[in-house]
């Protein structure tokens, strides 16, 4: 069983508080605009009151929709967002909202910055230095993959910067188990012939489990045919608290925040 770096691909926790300058990394398809911190803070309050029932605190409450990603299925520009919010999307759960202009501006500012605000005050450093640390001193690509580089044993991080806040990324590096999404929990299975399979859970139902094993093979196992089956709640990724200095941690977080996917 490999026990090297294993950064869980989690969705962030609650997102309120200090804005971190990551707007420049927003994908080109979603014009960042010029949003004031006050608009963002106001929008966060409105979002909490009006939107979390369906979209959840993290913006991922509706299947197939991730408001934190910076891209929207039915909107590219802020005017598109206005239209969706004010008129809803017929035939779906997205209702029309009666927001006044300042509320609307706030919600849009918040939606555009959901991924870059965090309650914590994580330090964000230099992304280029972070990449060097990620691929060198940290040895992160032994398990993680970014683009076409690295192993697939641990979660692919190519779009982690669109999924996680800075604070969550920092905690993932220093206390990996605390940030591991349960779906990514390590699996150990013993087959009927005694062969041991170790891997990362991709999916599970009552009768079967799907995983990627430490040889990067996609496996689907029938639970009734296993001698042993165990899901661990401890991440195999070590903490990098003592490996990276505070500045280096900030650099790695900056690099991870820059990973927005395609």
């Amino acid at each position, binding site marked *: 069983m490999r026990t090297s770096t294993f950064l869980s691909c989690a969705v962030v926790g609650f997102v309120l508080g200090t804005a971190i300058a990551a707007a420049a990394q927003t994908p080109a398809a979603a014009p960042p605009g010029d949003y004031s911190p006050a608009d963002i803070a106001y929008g966060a309050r409105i979002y*909490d*009151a009006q939107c979390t029932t369906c979209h959840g605190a993290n913006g991922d409450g509706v299947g197939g929709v991730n408001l934190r990603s910076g891209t929207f299925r039915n909107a590219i520009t802020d005017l598109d967002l206005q239209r969706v919010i004010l008129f809803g999307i017929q035939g779906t759960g997205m209702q029309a909202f009666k927001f006044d202009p300042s509320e609307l501006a706030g919600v849009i500012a918040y939606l555009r910055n959901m991924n870059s605000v965090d309650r914590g005050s994580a330090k964000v450093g230099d992304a280029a230095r972070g990449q060097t640390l990620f691929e060198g001193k940290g040895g992160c690509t032994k398990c993680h993959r970014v683009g076409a580089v690295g192993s697939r044993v641990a979660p692919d991080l190519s779009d982690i910067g669109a999924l996680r806040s800075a604070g969550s990324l920092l905690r993932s590096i220093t206390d990996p188990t605390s940030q591991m999404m349960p779906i990514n929990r390590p699996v150990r299975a013993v087959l009927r012939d005694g062969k041991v399979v170790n891997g990362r859970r991709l999916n599970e139902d009552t009768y079967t489990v799907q995983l990627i094993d430490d040889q990067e093979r996609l496996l689907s196992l029938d639970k009734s045919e296993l001698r042993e089956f165990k899901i661990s709640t401890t991440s195999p990724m070590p903490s990098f608290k003592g490996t990276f200095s505070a500045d280096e941690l900030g650099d790695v977080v900056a690099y991870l925040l820059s990973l927005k996917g395609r």
Partner: protein
Amino acid sequence: MTRRLTASLALLLAAVASYSVHAQVTSDRLVNAAKEPRNWLIYSGGYFSNRHSPLTQITPGNAKDLELKWMYQAAVAGAWQTTPLVVDGIMYLTQRPNDVVALDAKTGRVFWIYRHQLDPTQIVCCGSNNRGLAILGDTLYMGTLDANLIAIDAKSGHPIWKTRVADNKAGYSVTLAPLIVKDKVIVGVGGGEYGIRGFVAAFDAKSGREVWRFYTIPGPGEAGFDSWQACPPNEKAFCDSEAWKHGGGSVWVTGSYDPALNQTYWGVGNAGPDWNADQRPGDNLYTDSVVALDADTGRLKWHYQFTPHDRYDYDSVQVPVLADITWRGTPIKAMVWANRNGNFYVLDRETGRFLVGKPFVKVNWMDTFDERGRPHQTIQPAGQPTWPGNQGGTNWYSPSFSPHTGLFYVSAWENYATIFGGTPVEYQEGRNFGGGQNRPLVPVPGAPSLPGLRRGPINNWTEAAATGAVLALDASTGEQKWRYPMTDVTDSGILTTAADVLFTGGREGYFHAIDARSGTLLWKTNLGAQIVNGPITYEVDGKQYVAAISGLSLCVFGLR
């Protein structure tokens, strides 16, 4: 001559039999729905809402021989919660957002589709849900997302009349399947997240004229109004002095009817705002209650409140299951109920008297009942989890009662908790009136919170948030007889038959046949998407079929 007369008589009888097979659905047929098990005439299978069929062709012994007979595909994505009706070989069902489809129950071929053009300003909390139809005579009845009730000709699919039930711009909608009682069509309204004042209303089946209306939130001068207390003077926290006007009490799941008592029973939803209970002091009647109404007048006969002063959104919008059972050695007319709040209840349905209250999942919002059934509430400290969580120990999905086994079967969410938090919210028409910020409990403090309610085929909730189960409970005591565990949670309804076969689905997409007596798996098939409707069974040309909806597919099974 005699032979010719006999032949003529036989022809005549055949003609009469043929006519009766295709006869209109009278009120008497609805009362006696159990006597024609080939059909599924009412949302819950019959007025007692047992979701139990007398059909016995499919048995524990041959369930392994079930195979897919036909499928019907819908076009609009989203949870498809409808329960079809089957009337003499014709299946009628709704599909998103407010279509009605008539098709051949043997082949799945479509006769007609009616499409209601929705008001684009419709406001619904949780998607374009519709749970089904009612039928009387040759007329189908459907409630709509924009809060209309529509009568539709069952032969042609053309609308006959349309009645406005409530103002959709204020958040009212009709998502339940109507209930026919005698010559009336009874519906309730959704909108508990928008500060509506909920009601149940009856409409004349011929004309669409409203006959009676029962408000689930009593007004000034009415019994129960004092359960919406005035705000305390000098209250620092925001308190709404007219909380009753937007107190919620939605009714979005079909009720039941006891013809002998002429009482109709309806489960009432959460109080508004859902989570900030401090701004509506009092018990907040008749939210989170069951109400028994005189079917002719809508007058309240009795009520029982499951969750007084609810702060958890524990809607009591479960189907009231009526069962004639023996309780402590005495035959009684009972109502059995597994509530979203995690408790199983037995009530006397003649009087509403509380007989049994017993948790069927982990519960910590209360600990004991007094002799009248009032729960002693144990509010958890801020930041601490409450069991069951926001979606409840169970929810709207239909349970089943089998008179054959005496067991009550329910889809349950186990090990499921939420950290609740209320925030003041001012009522504004048509705007969300939730008043809370809730988080699912996750096992590691500081861990990322889990996604919300809806997900794709990957169970990213996992055991960390909740697991599912079908529970078989003794209907007179609530004692668990068996448990069929599932890795993912289940929002599927349950069907049982007189052959002691239980059918159910779940979020994993499996359609299961389970032995209703032992809880052992008889057969399963992977339909590929979540099953959130209630399976039904019916018969055409002597063959028993079972229908379930998975994702966008209505799948119908029969024996090889």
